[in-house]
Structure formats: C-alpha cells, structure tokens
C-alpha cells in the first residue's frame, strides 16, 4: 500500500520538485512545453533563435541572466568503437552560471559560439551527474564520445570536467551537460539554435510580475511564466499522468483497507470452529472477541511494521527500475506521512476488522458451525 501511494505521490510531486529545484524566476517558451520520455526523457525544443531572444531579454535592467537551454537526446560512449548509450544532453550558454557543480570544474566557456560564427575554439568539455558517471564508469578527467548521430559521436571527443546534479534533478533523468554551441553542433542545429526554454534569473529586488509584464509586451510571441505557471502549463499537458497518480493514491488506500480487512476476516474465519467450541464450552463472547481483537492488533502492528520497514528498500528498487525503463528518477516517493498512513491503516483497519469479525462470529450459534 505504501509503495502504491508512494508511486502516486511521486507522479504528482515529481514535476513540482523539479521546477522548484531549478531555482529560476521566469521561464520563456514558444508555446507548449511537453514532457517526453522519448530517447530517455526531457522536453521538446521549440524556441528557435534562442541566443538572439535571450540576448534581447537580458538587456532588460532587472534581468540578471537569460540563459537558453536545450535538451536533446544524444549518443554517449566511452570508446569510439564501444556501444553507445543515449542520454539527455543539456546545452547551456556561457560558462553555465546556472549549473551547480559539486565536484570538478565549470566549463571554461561557450567559446565555440563566437558570436554566432561557430568557429571559436571548442572546449570539448562535459559535465555529468554522478549517476551517469557511475553508469558509464567514468570519472573526472576521463574521455567520452558524444554526438547527435553515431557517426558524429565517434568523431567528437570530450573530457569530463566535473559533476553536476542540476539537470538530473530538474528533468528527473540522467543528463550530460555541454556548452550550448557544442550541443547544437553535435546535433546539427547551429542554424536554428533551438532551445526548450530560456530561463531568467532576476536581479536582486526585482519584481517578477513587473518584469514578466515588460517582457510579454516586448516579446508577445513567447510565453513568459513564473515557476508556478510554468509547472501548471506543463502539468496541464499531463492531466492523464496526474489522474493516474491520484488514482494510484486512492487505489493504495482502498487496497490497503481491503487487504487488511480480508486478511483479518480470513484469520478469524479459519478459527471459527475453535471459537464455536469454546463458546459451547461456556467461554463468553466478550473474552473471545477480546482475544480476536488482540490478534487483530498484533497482526496489524506486525504487518504495518513490516510494511514500513520494507518500503524504503522497495522504493529504492522500484526507482532504479523506473529510471531504467522510463527515464525518470525518484518516480516513487515516500514520506513519513505515507509510512504513518500505511501503518495506521494496518493497525486501525486490522483492529476494526477483528472487532467486526469477532462480533459476527460471537453472534453465530456454536452448533451452526460445529
């Protein structure tokens, strides 16, 4: 039950946490921003000429950074002849000021862009999240081969310069981070420079809604949204997912109640003849009901405790499977509320089931059973 509830809550919460962890003030998109699991997960890229648009927006006095970000499935391998795996490649402009680096170094820059000529010096640098590094069995300083196609990947050698959890947390999937120009080059999109969105970090003290209104006025063709609006617009596209998440939570509670009730009813049913024999012997209904309630409490407590203890490792296992299959990390999420709820249902429903079953049994004439 806790696992099912955890899956439901995880589906609902995943998107929200990812946007919160992105730590941005405004989001600029060109229409709908669809979540996709295709090619390992990520968003669709529909904001073209992103560099120019970002530059224009950054000229606003209250905008500290306007950073185009693109997410594109790319091939990554440890050897040019080895099997390549697909990951979401995140492209960030500049030195990646919005990218948190937990170990190693930031990019030395996005020099290949060279004001749109794409003839600057390539950094050939890449950042990985730690899970991707573990998957590929590489460390800082190791060489990888990346590209939008297999042939491009075999020819493009890059060096791991650091570890970054930023996009892995944001997208919920294993991600490699490259300078935006080098990602566009790797995927053959330098001409249109598509981005998934432009994220805007405001200057200290700036009012998000005022800047939002200004930018909407100057760039009416784009949607400019706050964190919450952006989340809602993404999740509106995922109504089915949300409904499934909510259904899972309801199903978890319903199934937990039904299973606990049935288990106790079965336990009591199996003892009906022994109970009837004791009733015939003169043992009172209150003693027998008390004994059955004691069993209900004991079974509910033991079952609830076992469920709570097993939930955490089971969540870990399910998340690993979910990450491997659908590309989202942390899809099943548990919390103390879910664990306490599961334990409470086991205990309370177990006791109520025992009371009902015991009462029902005590009302039956022993000779009808024996």
């Amino acid at each position, binding site marked *: 039950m806790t696992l099912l509830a955890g899956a439901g809550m995880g589906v609902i919460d995943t998107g929200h946490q990812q946007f919160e962890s992105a730590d941005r003030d405004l989001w600029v998109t060109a229409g709908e921003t669809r979540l996709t699991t295709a090619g390992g997960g990520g968003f669709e890229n529909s904001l073209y000429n992103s560099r120019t648009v970002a530059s224009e927006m950054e000229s606003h006095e209250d905008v500290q950074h306007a950073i185009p970000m693109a997410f594109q499935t790319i091939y990554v391998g440890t050897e040019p002849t080895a099997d390549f795996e697909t990951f979401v490649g995140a492209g960030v402009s500049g030195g990646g000021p919005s990218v948190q680096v937990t170990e190693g170094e930031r990019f030395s820059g996005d020099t290949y862009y060279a004001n749109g000529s794409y003839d600057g010096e390539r950094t050939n640098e890449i950042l990985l999240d730690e899970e991707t590094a573990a998957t590929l069995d590489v460390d800082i300083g190791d060489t990888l081969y990346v590209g939008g196609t297999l042939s491009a990947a075999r020819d493009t050698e890059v060096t791991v310069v650091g570890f970054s959890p930023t996009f892995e947390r944001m997208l919920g999937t294993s991600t490699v981070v490259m300078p935006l120009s080098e990602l566009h080059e790797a995927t053959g999109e330098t001409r249109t420079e598509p981005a998934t969105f432009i994220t805007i970090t405001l200057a200290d003290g700036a009012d998000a809604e005022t800047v939002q209104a200004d930018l909407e006025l100057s760039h009416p063709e784009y949607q400019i949204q706050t964190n919450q609006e952006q989340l809602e617009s993404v999740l509106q596209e995922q109504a089915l997912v949300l409904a499934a998440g909510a259904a899972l939570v309801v199903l978890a509670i319903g199934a937990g109640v039904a299973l606990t009730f049935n288990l106790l009813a079965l336990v009591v049913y*199996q*003892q009906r*003849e*022994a*109970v*009837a*024999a*004791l009733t*015939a*012997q*003169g*043992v*009172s209904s209150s*003693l027998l009901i008390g004994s059955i309630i004691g*069993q209900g409490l004991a079974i509910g407590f033991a079952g609830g405790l076992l469920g709570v203890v097993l939930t955490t490792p089971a969540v870990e296992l399910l998340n690993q499977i979910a990450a491997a299959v659908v590309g989202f990390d942390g899809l099943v999420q548990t919390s103390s509320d879910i664990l306490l709820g599961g334990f409470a249902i086991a205990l309370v429903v177990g006791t109520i089931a025992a009371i009902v079953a015991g009462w029902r049994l005590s009302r039956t004439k*022993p*000779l009808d059973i*024996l």
Partner: protein
Amino acid sequence: MSPAATSSSHPTEGDRSPVVYATDVTKVYTRGSGPGRVGKLLGRPEPPSVTALDKISVAIDAGEIVGLAGPSGSGKSTLLHLLAGLETPTAGTVQFQDQDLETLSRRERIRLRLEHVGIIFQHFHLVDSLSARANVSLPLVELGMGTRKRRERSEALLTRVGLEDRISHRPGELSGGEQQRVAIARALATDPTLIIADEPTGELDTETGQRVLEEFKRIATDRAVVLASHDQPTLEIADRIVQLRDGTRVEATQADT
C-alpha cells in the same frame, strides 16, 4: 435439593445419584421460518419439521460412562446437546443437578456449561495459534483464575493426560491423539461434573483411539461421562449403552456388567 435425595423420583438407571437426567425430551427442528399472519391468510403452508428426538428419558450418574449408539440421524448428537445445555428441548425437561435447564437464562446456561460441563469434539477444535497450555487455560481465564494458578492447573492437566513434554507445542505440532488429549485436558480444566464427547475417537487410528479411551476411563472415576459414537470398540468402555434409532430409544444394554 440434592440429586441423591430425588433420584428415586427421576428416571435413574443405576444406583448412583444422577448428574443429569432427561425426562421425555422431544426435539423438533423446523426448516425455515413460519408463514406469518399474512402468509397464513394467503394459505402458505407451515414449514416442514423433523423430530430429532421423541420422548427420550435418560439419567447419567456420577462415576459412570454412558454410550450413545445409533446410526447417523438417530439423534445422538441432539441428545448430547440437550444434556450439555447447548439446546433446549421442544418438550420434556433436562435437569442438571436438579436444575431445570429451561428455567435458566441463556447467560446462566453458559455459566453452567463453563463450570460443570466439559465438551470434547471429534475434530478437537483447538485454537491453532495458541500453545497446548494456552488452549487448556482459556476456560480458566473465563473463570477469573490468576495467571499463575492457570499455568499450574493447565500444566497439571496436560501432565495428567501424558503431555508433559508437549506443553508449549501448538496444535499443528501435535499428532491427532495428542490434540485430542489436549482437548480432554481443556474439557477437564474447570473440573466439570459432566463430560460430553461426540465421536471422540472418530479422527484417530485404532491404537491412538485406545489410548484416548483409557483417558476417558480415568476421568470418569468421579464424574459422569456421555459419549456418542458409531464405533463399537469406543462404546465398549461404556457402563451402559443407550441405543437410539430415528429419535427413539430402542434398547439399553449393560456393556461391562
């Protein structure tokens, strides 16, 4: 009024005072509910009824074993249930130590069974999740006996039936014969004056059945025992046999006199 003082006016069949006696008991079972007033007006028939016992009289003395014999459906179990106060007769009376069971409330009959009647079933009916000792202790809990005394008494009873090395075992860990001996110990827990046994060896092989019957002989020294069985070797331990057929008593024999 003691049973001894009144035994001559009751249908006793031995020299000892009766613990329980049934006088002209009839038990009729009705299948389904009656038609009701409206049903009667509409001409609905009365539901069919079956006479399980028809004017049976029998008295059981302390210290004797009475066997109830007869084919299936002859009324053995019904008579056992009436003698134990589990059911009340449609007609006639059942007196337990001179108390007419029909005059007692349901609660009083339950208390009487707890204190004075031990019941042993063919299928043992022990609580699987409890140890042999806890199974024997259950009726003593109802009597309000303290934990230590319950433990001592249940262990003494299990020792008495030869299960001193099985005290902590659960029913699933015991053989059929051992389970039946636990059931006997449970029936003896409240030191009853009447033991009722319905096919007590029905689930046991011959050798195990004989050992259980030896227990019956031992426990019958100071109390009345009524056992119903199809099995002739089981009935051979009885002092008297009451033969039933189609709810009527057809003969009574002295088994070992």
